[in-house]
């Protein structure tokens, strides 16, 4: 495993600079370019044709098949640094992005050529151009309701994420880009459910994204946000910690009074 990763990394380092220099390419050559990158960086876990690889005991997927995951999944997983993964595990956290956007596009084009799947959303899918302020307000309100119904169970009501069973977690959406949120809904990364365009229409997805952007601007009064639950937790810590300090302080006061060795002389 380790040797394989080192080998993959080493090969990648050797080949990557050469492949990053691509300019305007037509689709076929982009797919070919993507396949080259795929063979170097992804094939170890996902198979040489993206068919997926089982672990040695044949019981677990080392990497799932990528047929049908679509360009959106690739752009999300690679574009947020979740892939390539450092090691197998319950959760692949977002980290520094390893590929340039051109390389990601090539990888996405290759994976999309395996089987039909959701495409990378265009900026027009989630932009608010041409919406009046009132339409935006309405969209944010509707998006909020949709978010609270469909997403808040895992991602918390202000999108700050949360814990999931078996070492997994729902990622924070506070700093996620609009495109990546859209792609996550389309592709259902990891344990997340899919919210396809038949499930939530593109307009409803845009509304959810608008809502998430809008709550970033919400003012926070005092203290740490702690997932938006307000000053409750801080109050608890203040009570538990503060009480101890107060008791200690009371003991200290009672134990100390300045005394003198001089005798009192009655006038």
């Amino acid at each position: 495993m380790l040797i394989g990763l080192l080998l993959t990394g080493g090969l990648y380092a050797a080949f990557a600079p050469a492949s990053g220099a691509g300019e305007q390419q037509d689709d076929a050559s982009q797919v070919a370019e993507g396949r080259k990158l795929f063979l170097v960086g992804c094939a170890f876990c996902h198979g040489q044709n993206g068919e997926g690889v089982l672990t040695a005991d044949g019981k677990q997927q080392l990497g799932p098949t990528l047929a049908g995951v679509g360009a959106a999944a690739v752009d999300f997983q690679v574009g947020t640094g979740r892939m390539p993964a450092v090691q197998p595990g319950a959760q692949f956290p977002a980290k520094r992005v390893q590929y340039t956007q051109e390389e990601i596009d090539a990888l996405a084009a290759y994976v999309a050529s395996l089987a039909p799947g959701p495409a990378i959303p265009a900026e027009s899918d989630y932009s608010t151009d041409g919406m009046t302020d009132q339409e935006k307000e309405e969209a944010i309100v509707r998006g909020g309701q949709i978010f609270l119904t469909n997403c808040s169970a895992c991602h918390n009501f202000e999108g700050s994420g949360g814990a999931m069973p078996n070492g997994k977690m729902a990622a924070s959406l506070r700093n996620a880009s609009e495109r990546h949120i859209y792609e996550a809904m389309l592709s259902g990364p990891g344990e997340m459910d899919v919210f396809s365009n038949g499930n939530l229409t593109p307009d409803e997805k845009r509304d959810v994204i608008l809502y998430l952007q809008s709550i970033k601007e919400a003012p926070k009064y005092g203290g740490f946000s702690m997932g938006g639950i307000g000053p409750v937790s801080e109050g608890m810590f203040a009570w538990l910690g503060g009480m101890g300090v107060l008791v200690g302080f009371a003991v200290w006061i009672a134990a100390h009074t300045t005394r003198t060795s001089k005798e009192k002389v009655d006038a």
Partner: protein
Amino acid sequence: MSDNQDTLPEISTNGLPAEEPIANPGLPAHTWRPTDIDPAAEKRAERQVAALFGISMISTVLFVVAFFAFKVGDEPTVVGGFGASTVALGLTFGIALLAIGVGVIQWARKLMGDHEIVEMRHPASSSPEDREVTLTQLAQGLDESGIGRRPLVRNTLLGAVGLLGVPMIVALRDLGPLPGDKLYHTIWTKGMRVVRDVVGTPIHVSDLQIGDLLNGEPEALFPSEENGYPELSGVDSQIAKSKGAVILHRMEPSEITPSKGRENWSVQGIVAFSKICTHVGCPISLNEQQSHHLLCPCHQSTFDLADNGRVLFGPAARSLPQLPIEVDDEGYLVAQSDFTEPVGPSFWERD
């Protein structure tokens, strides 16, 4: 034995040694505080205490000033992100209270009387005379009231006081009529469409992909002229919504293991389950797409959507109720019937 007796100290009549084996050293000589012997120090302490009370007054005035000077929400990002108003009000009021507290302690420790007092323990019971008097008075009272001689009065009094409990029990009636069989039914009926929560649009069977999770509601909650359902409002609407909420999840049809009689309850891998946890009724929609495990955020009850909503983990005792669904003429998902069992938490009368 007798030798030992001789060496023991003499026991006096009250049970204490007549002469203590180790002489009572008494209290150590009192040491005075500087303020007790030095008038200048005393004066200084007095001024200190007064100054602390003065600081408190100034802080209180500043609190009032800050209250009017800073509006809540003005510049919420200054002073470490806490906001000018929050910090100013908190600091001034805190200092005002703290200065009074410190002042009082300084006063007590430096200026108030500094006597050392020994208070000997006294017996916890009252003196025999007091007890005698109390018992006599009690007996006298009982005798004078004649409670032993007049059973009619005594019994009617007991009856009157006892009957006072009845209004309390009767008032429980105000908690509402018994639910009857309402807990056994929801608003779902045969042929009612499943619609998306919030927006109320019907769901075509081709809308959902494998892995999709959809939060649904019965169409009757979104009445329109077209579907002809009656308007619901207020409590009725809330109750219908909370009991009717469902989640739809589409998976590979081969993954579903229906129990006997549920073979046709799903449509092409789409299953519908109540969204209300069978433990204490939290709405649940934390679904893990790959294992189809649905988790309740309140107490971590976990249900297997591929296996008839079976409980895998947690405090829930019953499987999640499944809503049998089918496809109508236009290809939209509809209910085959109401839930076949009560949704939500268990209750007293339920088998």
